[in-house]
């Protein structure tokens, strides 16, 4: 008995099932917070990206500035962006969300512009010929045709955000990242493995479900390959 106890104390296995069964609520809360942070970030990102993307698509003059600003935001490392915000917004969810939203913008706006640009001129002219006004054409012809590209952007933004949420553990949020940080601080593998695996699984599940949504929304493109 003593021998196994000593071995157990020295060797830290990659998974200690007893820790998992004793921490189900902690794991569940981390997962829930992870999903919340992600959904809010991508949701707000979309609310900003759709109007900005449409403006950048229509007004070529705006493209340079929009892509430069969102490109710079995208280039700044996540921890640095959070750190820049902390003096102003503190160690709060707001800091985390401003950072996370910033990262979605370039991906979402780029895919909106690329998707809208790819709508064939013939189709747009046909829509005009059928009497569509500008706004109706955008809503009922251009946007639906650009949907595969836009959805591809949402998928990339979502998977990216799920990964970045883990970094927010360093500023007191983190979702599953808090389990990973716990693993680092206590030099204990189980929370690290659980946090990492759940984060990867969450990213894959989100990607697959969004691709399912995309298929439902664009029945005409089924059977053809989409980006």
């Amino acid at each position: 008995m003593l021998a196994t106890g000593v071995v157990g104390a020295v060797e830290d296995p990659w998974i200690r099932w007893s820790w998992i069964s004793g921490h189900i609520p902690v794991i569940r809360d981390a997962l829930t917070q992870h999903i919340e942070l992600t959904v809010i970030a991508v949701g707000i990102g979309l609310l900003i990206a759709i109007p900005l993307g449409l403006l950048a698509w229509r007004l070529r003059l705006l493209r340079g500035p929009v892509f430069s600003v969102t490109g710079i935001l995208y280039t700044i490392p996540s921890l640095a962006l959070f750190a820049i915000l902390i003096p102003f917004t503190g160690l709060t969810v707001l800091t985390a969300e401003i950072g996370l939203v910033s990262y979605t913008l370039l991906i979402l706006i780029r895919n909106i512009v690329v998707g809208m640009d790819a709508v064939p001129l013939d189709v747009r002219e046909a829509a005009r010929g059928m009497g569509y006004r500008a706004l109706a054409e955008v809503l009922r012809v251009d946007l639906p045709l650009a949907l595969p590209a836009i959805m591809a952007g949402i998928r990339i933004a979502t998977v990216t955000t799920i990964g970045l949420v883990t970094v927010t553990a360093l500023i007191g949020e983190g979702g599953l990242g808090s389990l990973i940080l716990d693993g680092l601080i206590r030099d204990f593998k189980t929370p690290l493995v659980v946090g990492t695996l759940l984060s990867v699984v969450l990213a894959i599940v989100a990607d697959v479900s969004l691709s399912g949504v995309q298929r439902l929304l664009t029945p005409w493109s089924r059977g053809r390959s989409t980006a």
Partner: protein
Amino acid sequence: MSFIGQVLQWFLDGSHWQGDFGIPNRLFEHVSMSVESLVAAALIALPIGVTLGHIGRGGNLAINVSNVGRAVPSFALLVIAVQLVGIGFWPAFIALVALGIPPIVTNSYIGMREVDADVREAAKGMGMRDRAVLWQVELPIAAPFLMAGVRTSAVNIVATATLAALVAWGGLGRFIVDGLAQRDTVQLFAGALLVALLSVAVELSLTALQRITTSRGLRNETSIQEVRSTSLSAA
């Protein structure tokens, strides 16, 4: 004094510019760690991507490796590396190399597949051997894609090297991590500015380099735009 004034004063403080804990040394640590990891990642990833693209096999693998790479948080990668090799230089190096490989594999594979089949056939018809087709035709045409992969990796690596301070390595992330630990928002903010500046500088200079590596016959085509669009991924 205003916050910005305090930050300015931090930068003007001579002691922050000398010794092992000074900005120059931290910058050197950050850059050398990034360069070493990038070189190692490129040495591993370029032959894989180029070979797969050249023989036209393993496309799914080459493309999906990037998607899987995106799903694995770089923070988790770093902490796992600590469990494997302890703290210090090695976990940071291993995590950064692992992070740098997928974009290079994917982009070099895509670049090689983008080479027009007619061009390849013409080269063969002119009597070029397989090796010559690879080195004199395919690689020059694929070069902008190869560079795009290297650039994406470089930007990711420089960004994630910030986290290396968490595993007891240096680099500019030290100011951020110490600032967080000591509740020193001035140091935190100053460090974040330095990291942001370095990242943007790396991105801009590599974009310029990518333009230069584009063969003259290919410049001004849409290819660079397409290259940009295949090379996104965040750190």
